[in-house]
């Protein structure tokens, strides 16, 4: 048994997601890839046809036309487009997994809160690439010691930051910092992004600073982070902790820490290289997280199949 899915937005993210679903989707059958340009003008739609996937070229109208064939829509368009499409998906009874920063639905990070949101809503948002990489670390610290303040820095290869990210870079920092608080559990969050044009391109790397009470059991934090990293690797194989939490105290910084210490963790995300090169771990972690969420949604559909009648054989 499986659920039927469509991808709306055949760009880099949508195309990478298609290959991931085809490679290792377990309960998701990809039925259709939908764009807004003719097939000959869309590399993503051509790639879909090459894989034997049906396509649509009329955007939301294609979704309407084929709504009875699908249960789940992966939105890989833009924030603006998802804001317009979301009510249509709702009307059509489709579950939306939103990979844009629109955040119509709740922020969702598979290892942290997937079970809390799936079943509660039919539109979930995948935060940002940096959020998927770092919010689990904040959560792992926070479940051991209350995190007063969490700060993440994402370093991304210039070549893997597309025009959407560049034209609205504030949405990355604002959405990610909100996610550090709402999903990660920090009282306050801050997000920073840098683009580095070095050649060869740098792997996506992230730093997570958490400010916690000085009596925190650092070994317990390390164990907690190791455990969550193992869980993340079940859906993001290239996720690696490159620096286990290092402790910084009053002597190591130039500002007053009061009765707190800083725990700094670093991690890298290497992409699987299906559609995009391995350094573009920032795109990979979004599509991997979306697929992970999709599997959970599928399981939920099948459990509740008799109620909604949406699951297919």
């Amino acid at each position, binding site marked *: 048994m499986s659920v039927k899915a469509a991808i709306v937005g055949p760009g880099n993210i949508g195309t990478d997601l298609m290959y991931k679903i085809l490679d290792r989707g377990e309960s998701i059958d990809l039925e259709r890839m939908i764009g807004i340009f003719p097939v000959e003008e869309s590399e993503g739609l051509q790639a879909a046809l090459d894989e034997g996937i049906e396509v649509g070229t009329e955007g939301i109208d294609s979704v309407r036309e084929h709504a009875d064939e699908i249960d789940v829509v992966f939105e890989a368009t833009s924030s603006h487009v998802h804001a317009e499409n979301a009510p249509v998906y709702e009307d059509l009874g489709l579950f939306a997994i939103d990979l844009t920063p629109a955040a119509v639905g709740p922020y969702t990070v598979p290892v942290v809160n997937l079970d809390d949101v799936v079943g509660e809503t039919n539109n979930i948002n995948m935060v940002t690439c940096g959020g998927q990489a770092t919010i689990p670390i904040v959560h792992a610290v926070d479940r051991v010691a209350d995190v007063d303040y969490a700060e993440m820095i994402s*370093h991304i290869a210039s070549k893997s930051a597309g025009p959407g990210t560049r034209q609205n*870079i*504030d949405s990355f920092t604002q959405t990610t910092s909100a996610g550090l608080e709402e999903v990660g559990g920090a009282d306050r969050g801050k997000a920073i992004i*840098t*683009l580095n*044009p070095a050649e060869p391109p740098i792997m996506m790397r992230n730093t997570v*600073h958490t400010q916690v009470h000085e009596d925190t059991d650092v070994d317990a934090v390390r164990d907690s982070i190791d455990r969550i990293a193992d869980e993340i690797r079940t859906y993001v194989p290239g996720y690696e902790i490159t620096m286990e939490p*290092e402790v910084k105290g009053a002597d*190591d910084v130039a500002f007053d820490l009061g009765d707190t210490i800083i725990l*700094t963790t670093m991690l890298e995300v290497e992409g699987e290289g299906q559609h995009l090169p391995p350094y573009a771990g920032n795109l990979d972690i979004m599509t991997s997280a979306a697929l992970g969420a999709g599997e959970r949604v599928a399981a939920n559909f099948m459990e509740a199949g008799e109620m909604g009648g949406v699951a297919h054989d």
Partner: protein
Amino acid sequence: MTDADVRLVDMTLRDGMHAVDHSFTPEEMADVAAALDAADMDVVEVSHGDGMGGSSINYGFSAADTAEYLDAVVPQLTDTELSVLLLPGIGTVEELDLAAEKGADICRLATHVTEADVSQEHFEYVTDRGLEANGLLMLSHMAPPETVLEQAKLMEDYGADAVYVMDSAGAMLPSDVRERVSLLVDELSIDVGFHAHNNLGLGIGNSMAALDEGAVTIDGCLRGLGAGSGNAQIEVLVGVMEKAGYDVAPDFFGVMDAAADVLVPMISDDEMPELDNDSLLLGYAGVYSSFLRHTRRAGEKYDVDPREILIELGEMQVVGGQEDLITDVASRLAGERAGAESDDD
């Protein structure tokens, strides 16, 4: 502003914040701003060293927030204009909104030299509010002149009133400055500026080279306070430019007095930048100047020579904002050394 040939921007209260680990109090900022206003400085720039929104674990928390600093400085300024800095990716339009509300005249928007297109939304925001918008291309030594021009043109298209060649690592030779500034002056219809760091001892010389090629807005700090070995020393700039025949607005003695009587008593020996071995390495290896003090602290924590850390960072082609990688490199170098020592056993 005056009808002087060249505009001087004093960044003692912004780039200078790096030298004091962002510890200036609003009262100290007010005193320095008042002295600069009395000396007829053209522009005073105020913010965390890494721009508004820079107050963080990664770059260091500042002693006060942007609103408190601006509230302290604004009443001190009569004819001197107020500038703020923002690095898209670190700060957001929310900070620009605050600066506009508090009375900033100029917003300077800084990106890495190849990444100007992350600043479009911020330029639109600033120009929509009727403020002057300047574009700052950081680490301009890392890109060839043609690339600097291409990126500067993007900022011009977004609405910049001026674009700066930023020698953020103090790594440029006078010929590097001339190539970049002259190309921008020839090809752009907006003003061109230059921002020096003194890591190779060329802060004043490079600024004069930029002026010679047509730059009309120049950055400096009292006593050269600033990241790394500091910026171009602004009282020296005033004197040298007067000798060279430029019409400058700031009063020479007034700027000297602001440095000696107001700023210097606030600064400890440890804070006052000097061209020492570590800061020389910044210029040599081409590393962002504000990495200096973070690197020294990491060197001490991990017992690694800061120069080795800086060389490694230079080879990694790190850019502004990547200060967290200092810890990564320092802990790795310490680990490699520990590994080598245990191999010897």
